[in-house]
């Protein structure tokens, strides 16, 4: 009896998980009139109009480009800054190393709202307001600590004898670091990039505060519900659907490594 129905619970679970996403997709293929006026489980009048608008109207698609631009910039910055730091935390002992490591992690706990005002004032005064760099740098606040934390786990899993063997073989430090060490921890770097990408992609408050027009992220564009042409629910649904895609693509590439990250207890 039990065996026959063991598919039931996971199926219900997945159905519930998928429901909001289905509803979003459903809406994105409807016209706004249909969304507001009728209740339908699938589009009565199937339309690509919303998607066409997004890909042709530059106020929409530049939002995506802006987001991708600062997210990629932030991901690279975070990993480049975190790699040497994580290496140092893993390999060397220095005064207060454990406290510093923990303090880094506490930065991850600070709500971004706390920093919105000082960041806004600071970036304005050095003329970085409404630039991609401003958002990318501000997201380092939570992404660098996270990257250091994840990478330290992966680096500590590599025996220090590997470093020593390379030195014995005649490798100077940087040559060893780039030729041997980084290729050894590619899985860790992949995971780290994924998480930096994700957290930067979903962050809204700082991104919205630090931009006006030129670097406005898609999430900011999306959250305006009323425009000159009234409610555009269909359009917003299409934009939302498209926002899910980059995360899904990145997850696909690192899916095999994520389990490893969990096993190390760092993700």
């Amino acid at each position, binding site marked *: 009896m039990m065996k026959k129905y063991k598919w039931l619970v996971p199926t219900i679970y997945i159905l519930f998980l998928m429901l909001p996403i289905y509803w979003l997709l459903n809406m994105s293929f409807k016209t706004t009139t249909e969304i507001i006026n009728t209740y339908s489980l699938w589009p009565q009048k199937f339309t690509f109009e919303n998607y066409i608008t997004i890909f042709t109207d530059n106020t929409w698609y530049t939002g995506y480009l802006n987001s991708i631009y600062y997210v990629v910039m932030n991901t690279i910055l975070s990993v480049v800054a975190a790699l040497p730091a994580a290496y140092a935390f893993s390999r060397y002992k220095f005064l207060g190393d454990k406290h510093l490591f923990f303090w880094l992690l506490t930065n991850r706990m600070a709500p971004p709202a706390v920093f919105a005002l000082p960041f806004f004032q600071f970036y304005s005064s050095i003329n970085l307001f409404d630039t991609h760099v401003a958002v990318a740098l501000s997201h380092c606040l939570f992404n660098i600590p996270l990257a250091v934390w994840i990478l330290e786990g992966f680096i500590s899993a590599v025996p220090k004898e*590997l470093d020593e063997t390379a030195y014995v073989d005649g490798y100077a430090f940087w040559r060893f670091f780039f030729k041997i060490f980084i290729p050894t921890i590619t899985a860790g770097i992949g995971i780290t990039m994924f998480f930096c990408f994700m957290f930067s992609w979903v962050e809204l408050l700082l991104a919205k505060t630090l931009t006006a027009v030129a670097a406005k992220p898609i999430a900011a564009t999306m959250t305006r519900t009323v425009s000159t042409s009234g409610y555009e629910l269909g359009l917003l649904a299409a934009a939302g659907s498209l926002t899910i895609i980059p995360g899904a693509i990145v997850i696909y590439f690192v899916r095999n490594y994520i389990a490893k990250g969990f096993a190390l207890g760092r993700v």
Partner: protein
Amino acid sequence: MSLELRNVEKKVGQDTHIYSTNLRFEKNTINILLGSTLAGKTTLMQIMAGLDKPTNGEIWFADKNVTGVAVQKRNVSMVYQQFINYPNFSVFDNIASPLKITGINSDQIKKRVGQVSELLKLSEMLDKRPNELSGGQQQRTALARALVKDSGLILLDEPLANLDFKLREELREELPKLFENRECIVVYATTEPSDALLIGGYTATLMEGRVIEYGKTIEVYNKPKNLFSARVFSDPPINISEIKKSGDTFSLLHDSVKWKNSNVDLKDGNYKVGIRPYNITTYKEGNNCIEIKGKVLISELSGSESLIHFRNVNLNWVSLSNGIHQMKVGQEAKLYMNVDEFMYFDQNNNLVNNV
């Protein structure tokens, strides 16, 4: 060419890891560092390699003071207990890596890697990645990398410890041959006395950060300087008991075992006697055998040998006999000790006489 440690000392914080040590290894020798874990073998090797700096003292190599010289410039090789290879390189590139750094041309590299991989039976695996190999092959790769360059000092830190028994036996026999006809000093750290005996050469016994004794392996084994050295160089552990001599009469264990022996040149008095487990057997061996009785605590077989742990008065004894001799736990056992192989130590634990 020789390697010399002069008053080398290593402290980490308040703890002393290596007490002031003087050692001199000559050219073309295999030197074994024998000691249990935490005896300081690895620390000593790291200092020799230049991966770690001594707190005090100097390291001389080929009559040059190399104390502060970086490891990259020392021309040493090292093999670890863990199988350390570069996971992103093929086996060929792993072995070739120390040569590539020096900038030799690629024909030369190919030739030398070919020779070494032939020697270590890796020729078939040169295109594979290290993690596709078995443990034994991974360690062979690490060994090949250590042998491919002409280093003056080859350090092997328990290279066989993580291998299974069969592979270990196999590689252990090959090892000394690999270093024949090479101009180098080999240092081999191990916890196994049997490794030291099989490889031969010279042995330094270590205990708790101190080098107890250094000399020819067979001499250190047969005539250990003191009780500590004898203890380090014995597996299963050596039996130690108080012994009393008056005239020709020796007595052990509160006079419960007594015998006469006129061949031993010792003054009357109290001593400690060290008896290696294989000198206590279930059968008579040698011309001077004495009987010892005890209650069997554990009886175990290892291969074609039998280990019997027994208790006599207030001491636990270990005996090692050839062949299969099983005894019941709790049974009264009768065993024989070969008196001619006893080692006598004075009250300061120094060897006084060894027949």
